[in-house]
């Protein structure tokens, strides 16, 4: 059992390291690519893999941020701004060490809070009624809409598109059909995998394809920045609580921490990187709590993990989390140590991998897309329907490649949850 867990942790580290380096990929594609393999393993292994990916990707997404000023994902924006500036001035080694050390402290901080809070988390469940759930999901939808950088109307339209696509098919409770037009294929609904591929992976890979990258200088010294501990702990604390907010999670945490440090600390450049990275990693772990305790995935990659674990027979409750997943906690410190070494002393190696990807991105992207699509088609019982959905949605996704299409994914998942909770809340209040 433990050997299997360690193997999944290692696969997660390798996968997280690589997909963290690809801007826009991150944990979502790391999980999507191994979907069929993960579907055949236990819920414990799935969560082990995901935690390893989540932690590692949050270290390596700062590599392109520091070297090129291109954040691996939205959580590395602060590091991209300040870290790349330091790198150009010849102080790249300080940004690298700050990323490595503060990220590790962020993980350990979250782990300690996790262990302290978990035994009493059962009480949260008693207060989590349909009205609270409706408010939480509504907040998530509002956050997704208003914190986006793109036009809010477009975000709302994309969210609604996801919601409409989710409703196509037959209702599991009432057996009423929606937009099936008497077509037996449409009565199956739009498979989630096709939404994920067409409306998220295709536009994201299309965006990365257009980036221009040049070769960078090596980092030959391994300096340590001073006086970053307070900023790191502050970032860890802020990041942990922001991680619990659906829709924004560690993105808000890293952004808010970096800005607070810049506003209130002296000599804030390095400290803001430390705070942002600590918040990023601390928030990434705390964002797992709503999924594990309340069965509410609040990030795109969590949606995938949620489906995978459900299909595996896992029931998301506090008891199951404590009883069946606790062994992951003991592996996390080891993952953290490996990531610390990898992102600090292995920085130049990661930089070479990033450059390799940039050079061969067309082939790599096509390989990613083909693998995910083939596996999705083969695992869905009606192959032709999955193929049709992937093709149609990929065309749509490519057309929308200049937009942030993630609201469509949130819409697909959250709108049904919101609708069901809202109906109950209305009955309860009335």
């Amino acid at each position, binding site marked *: 059992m433990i050997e299997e867990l360690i193997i999944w942790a290692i696969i997660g580290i390798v996968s997280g390291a690589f997909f963290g380096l690809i801007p826009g990929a991150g944990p979502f594609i790391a999980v999507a690519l191994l979907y069929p393999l993960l579907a055949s393993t236990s819920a414990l292994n799935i969560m082990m893999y995901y935690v390893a990916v989540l932690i590692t990707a949050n270290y390596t997404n700062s590599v392109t941020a520091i070297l090129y000023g291109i954040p691996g994902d939205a959580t590395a924006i602060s590091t991209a701004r300040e870290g790349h500036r330091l790198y150009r001035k010849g102080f790249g080694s300080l940004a690298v060490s700050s990323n490595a050390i503060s990220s590790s402290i962020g993980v350990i901080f979250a782990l300690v809070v996790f262990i302290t809070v978990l035994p009493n988390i059962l009480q949260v*469940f008693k207060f989590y009624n349909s009205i609270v759930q409706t408010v939480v999901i509504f907040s998530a939808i509002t956050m997704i809409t208003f914190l986006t950088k793109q036009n809010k109307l477009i975000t709302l339209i994309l969210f609604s598109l996801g919601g409409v696509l989710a409703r196509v098919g037959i209702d599991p409770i009432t057996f009423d059909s929606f937009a099936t037009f008497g077509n037996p294929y449409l009565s199956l609904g739009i498979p989630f995998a096709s939404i994920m591929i067409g409306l998220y992976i295709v536009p994201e890979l299309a965006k990365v394809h257009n980036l221009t990258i040049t070769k960078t200088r090596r980092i030959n010294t391994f300096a340590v920045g001073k006086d970053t501990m307070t900023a790191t702990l502050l970032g860890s604390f802020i990041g942990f609580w922001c991680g619990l907010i659906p829709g924004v999670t560690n993105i808000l945490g890293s952004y808010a921490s970096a800005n607070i440090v810049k506003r209130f600390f002296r000599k804030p450049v390095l400290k803001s990187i430390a705070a942002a990275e600590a918040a990023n990693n601390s928030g990434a772990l705390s964002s797992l709590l709503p999924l594990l305790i309340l069965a509410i995935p609040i990030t795109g990659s969590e949606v995938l993990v949620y489906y995978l674990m459900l299909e595996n027979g896992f029931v998301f409750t506090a008891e199951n989390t404590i009883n069946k997943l606790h062994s992951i906690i003991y592996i996390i410190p080891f993952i953290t140590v490996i990531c610390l070494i990898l992102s600090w002393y292995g920085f130049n190696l990661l930089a070479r991998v990033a450059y390799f990807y940039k050079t061969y991105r067309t082939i790599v992207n096509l390989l990613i897309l083909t693998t995910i699509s083939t596996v999705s088609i083969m695992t869905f*019982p009606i192959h032709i329907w999955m193929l049709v959905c992937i093709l149609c949605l990929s065309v749509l996704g490519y057309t929308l490649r200049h937009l942030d299409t993630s609201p469509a994914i949130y819409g697909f998942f959250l709108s049904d949850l919101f609708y069901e909770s809202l109906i109950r809340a209305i009955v309860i209040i009335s």
Partner: protein
Amino acid sequence: MKTLITLAAILFATTASAEVKIVNAGSDTGAFRQVLTTIGETIDHTFIQANNPVTAYTYMQGDDILTVWSSEWPGNNDMQSPTIDATNLVALMTYETMICSRTFTSLSDMSGKQVKLATWGSEPVAKFLTTLGTTHNIDFVVVPFGGSGSTTKGYIAGDADTVFTITTRLTAIQEDSATACIAFSDEGDLGFRFVDAIATVNADATITEQLRSTVATLSTSTEWLDAFSGTSTYVGGTEANVSMFNEAVVNFSK
């Protein structure tokens, strides 16, 4: 001879451990899932969470399927169901039902009042509650959930003060110390119980027989009796079991 026995043993082991596809046509928190997960822990399997019988039926073209199929479904002309007979019926489970409340102490106590009731929103349940409401002069307002698991969660979280669910959930519901369970189908208070078939589809007789033996062992274990207290499990494709299922199908027919 030794080689032959070894080969036969390998062949048997391969047949016996052929991977079964478990297809859950119920919700992700309901009792069907709990039954299938419990069986799944003892066999090599892949788990498919289909969420509803319509989607679940699309998986029935494959081989070696194990599923739980409600007697509510074959009588519904809007959906297709696999044939359930003596060849593929692994076991039958009957789920007794109950009404529990933290506000009322009996059905007569509810008379003349509007009662908000947590339960799942399927048509047979709605029909039964309307009849029960008319008999006892109760105006039931359903707070709808997707399965017995989420119904229990919702009740404990305070979404409604009364719950109609299966007796399998009795222990979880009684975690709320203010709750009293006031009416039971097995005591004749409620004329409604669920009859579900655990059945194989497109599986050869060896696999079906192996699953019967697995369920026979499981259903006498303490874990099973605790997890599904309030249910009865009848193993095998006997004439009596098939008749019981078919009778329930007729009762639930639209």
